[in-house]
């Protein structure tokens, strides 16, 4: 019976050399003490960042025109969320990986109707607003075509919006109830009531911030704050955190792909980068089984530095 050939990238030689004393408990204890002290030193000298969360209230008070313009984009269907597609709505096809429309196939699982969820329902929750109630009734009873005409007329004037004496001022336009709705929504946002209405849409207790975060993310305000903190995609994006902190540096490869062609100009960059990272991750996982790749460490010979004492002897 022939002896099986030794495969240097799969098999390990049997160790016939000596052994040295090894106190595993002592080693572990020293490691915890040293890492603990290092952690305390780093935490003491550098702390951790904690920029206050942005609220719809702070946004609408800091930039009421941006808020009103974002609100009208939710109403006319041009905001990022309104035109997103799955998992929020069916307004867009979403990204695709070659012929694979993964998000679309999964479908709408977290329904978000920007008109109802961001505008109409919150406004209806306001008590004792007879003028608003009348305008909402006009909106609700109007045909879809009429609503679209009003919204389009208002949208044409949206770039000329101003904010004066606590109200959104829009040039004279035939927009039906829309000016009152946008102005009252802005008042509601500036009071803080909209934050609550967006979160508690499903009941008293709430831990799901999907709707207020989507609304905030549709604004220019949040992106401007992120840009000042060097957090946008072109600035290595979400691996960073505010201030001079390392952030999720381990995501560097994932974030790297967004900076280079073809991903930095691709409309399907997200799904392409995810696909690439999945392939690379599976490759790393299965590396011991892949001929060629598993031979790399033997060929580059870094191991001779690691085990230099062994090879010297």
């Amino acid at each position, binding site marked *: 019976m022939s002896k099986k050939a030794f495969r240097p990238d799969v098999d390990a030689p049997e160790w016939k050399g000596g052994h040295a004393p*090894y106190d595993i408990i002592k080693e572990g204890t020293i490691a*915890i003490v040293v890492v603990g002290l290092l*952690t305390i030193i780093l935490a003491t000298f550098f702390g*951790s960042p904690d920029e206050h969360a942005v609220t719809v209230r702070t946004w609408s008070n800091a930039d009421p025109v941006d808020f009103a313009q974002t609100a009208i984009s939710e109403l006319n269907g041009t905001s990022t969320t309104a035109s997103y597609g799955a*998992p929020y709505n069916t307004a867009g096809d*979403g990204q695709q990986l070659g012929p694979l429309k993964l998000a679309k196939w999964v479908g709408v699982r*977290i329904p978000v109707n920007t008109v109802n969820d961001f505008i109409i329902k919150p406004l209806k929750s306001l008590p004792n607003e007879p003028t608003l109630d009348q305008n909402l009734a006009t909106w609700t009873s109007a045909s879809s075509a009429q609503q679209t005409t009003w919204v389009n007329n208002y949208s044409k004037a949206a770039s000329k919006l101003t904010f004066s004496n606590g109200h959104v001022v829009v040039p004279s336009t035939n927009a039906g109830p829309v000016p009152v709705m946008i102005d009252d929504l802005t008042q509601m946002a500036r009071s803080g009531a909209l934050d609550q209405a967006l979160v508690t849409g499903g009941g008293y207790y709430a831990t799901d911030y*999907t709707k207020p975060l989507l609304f905030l993310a549709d604004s220019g305000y949040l992106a401007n704050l992120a840009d000042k903190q060097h957090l946008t995609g072109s600035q290595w994006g979400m691996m960073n955190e505010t201030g001079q902190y390392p952030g*999720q540096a381990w995501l560097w490869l994932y974030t790297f792909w967004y900076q280079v062609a073809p991903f930095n100009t691709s409309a399907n960059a997200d799904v392409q980068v995810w696909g690439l990272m999945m392939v690379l991750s599976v490759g790393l996982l299965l590396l011991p089984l892949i001929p060629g790749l598993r031979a790399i460490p033997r060929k580059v010979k870094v191991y001779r530095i690691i085990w230099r004492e062994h090879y010297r002897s």
Partner: protein
Amino acid sequence: MSTTEIDRQWTTRLRKRVAGKLPPEKLLPDTQPAYVASWIYVFGVTTLAALSIVIATGCILAIRGPEWWHGSYIGHFVNSLHLWSVEIFFFAMIVHLWGKFFMGAWRGGRTMTWMTGCVTFFASILAGFTGYVSQTNFDSQWISTQAKDGINATGGGAYFNVLNLGQMLMWHIVLLPIAAIALTAIHVILVRIKGVVPPYAEDSEIAQ
């Protein structure tokens, strides 16, 4: 009860199997092969030490809830300890991973050791990410609203909603720590069973 009957018991068979695979001298060794003599070996135990501090500081943060650290000096300091232990954890883990790659540490029947290490790395990335989006501050708002597009594009966002604080927090403090600890335990047990991978054989040794 006969000896044969006792031998057939599930408990007896499990005990014998565990004792055979992992006798006490392997679980808690007092010697190691002479080739285990490099600074690169420090990073495995450093990763474990950092993980224990990550878990300890996370437990302290959990006592008073997710928003405690915003308004408390002590809470903020514990959060800083949590953050920096995470940074050390990932630094040590990645150096450990590269070290094991250059040692070809999957050789000699250690493929599962390599794979459990990789899966632990992936689970840790997810744990770190869910922590960042559960901070309840501007960072978590920005990171979650940016990250949603990536995972939504794969279809996964329909089930793993990064904008849902409750879901992310539960993953961060329950599911992923359990996964990370269990995977780490399996990984360490496999290291103890199989031992540390020996150096590559010289060509002359292979020829023999």
